[in-house]
């Protein structure tokens, strides 16, 4: 096994372990931190896949944005020092079984299905290419989604504000 493969397995282990802890930890703040580690690990995986841009985006958006937001909302809404209630036993068993079964099923399907590279040649997933393709108005260009994203963000922002501000006067 080459060094690179070793790195991959360590990373995957890290991602899965942190993910598992994130959903299992009883302390909500720790849970958020484990989620953070898991997401960082995924960014590492992208680095390993030589998709640096996506990795950076992953860090910027998930780690720098979403997790911070989650932490803030934990401060706001939770007794973050208290333990979360343990899941109901029956429900936990059901969940484990369901998730396990689902996992097995999918895994079997994946094993059965052979993946074959379709395309030939490679394209450098550099930011330049991404940018060029994003801005191009040709058939494979993504300029429309690019603009649509801004509308989506606008909608999200307005939505957030409307929802979050709604109860403000009563607070004051």
């Amino acid at each position, binding site marked *: 096994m080459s060094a690179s493969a070793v790195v991959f397995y360590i990373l995957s282990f890290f991602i899965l372990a942190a993910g598992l802890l994130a959903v299992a930890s009883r302390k909500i703040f720790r849970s958020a931190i484990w989620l953070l580690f898991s997401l960082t690990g995924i960014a590492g995986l992208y680095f390993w896949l*030589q998709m640096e841009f996506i990795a950076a985006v992953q860090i*910027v958006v998930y780690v720098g944005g979403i997790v911070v937001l989650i932490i803030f909302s934990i401060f706001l809404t939770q007794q973050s020092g208290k333990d979360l209630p343990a899941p109901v036993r029956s429900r936990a068993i059901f969940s484990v079984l369901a998730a396990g079964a689902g996992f097995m099923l999918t895994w079997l399907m994946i094993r059965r299905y052979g993946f074959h590279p379709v395309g030939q040649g490679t394209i450098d997933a550099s930011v330049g290419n991404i*940018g060029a393709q994003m801005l191009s108005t040709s058939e494979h260009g993504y300029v429309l989604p*690019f603009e649509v994203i*801004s509308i989506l*963000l606008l909608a999200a*922002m307005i939505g*957030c504000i409307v929802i979050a*501000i709604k109860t403000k006067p009563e607070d004051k």
Partner: protein
Amino acid sequence: MGSASLIVLFFAGVAFAAGGIAVARFFVKGTKNLQKGQAYECGIPTTGTPWNQFNIGYYLYALIFLIFDVELVFMYPWAVAVKKVGMAALGEIVIFLFILFMGFLYAHKKGALKWM
């Protein structure tokens, strides 16, 4: 060096921090007393725990930040490509920013950027 450097730097960081902390562990025998481990609050025993709900006005900023952060992410590839694409890119970004700026104005108007 390539991406291996990340691993190297990561471990350098770990080693640095761990080394520093270990020295004190090894050499310093701290005295123990009852009050040492308690939280510091200007010399007065704390009451209650900060791990509680906490009324903060910061989260709206974080919400809006997240939106702008995503916008920023899309602007990196744009910025790299802008010279190649030329004027069209400027137009595209003007539309893009204009739409977001609307949201910004809206937020401003609604008072989301005012401190609560």
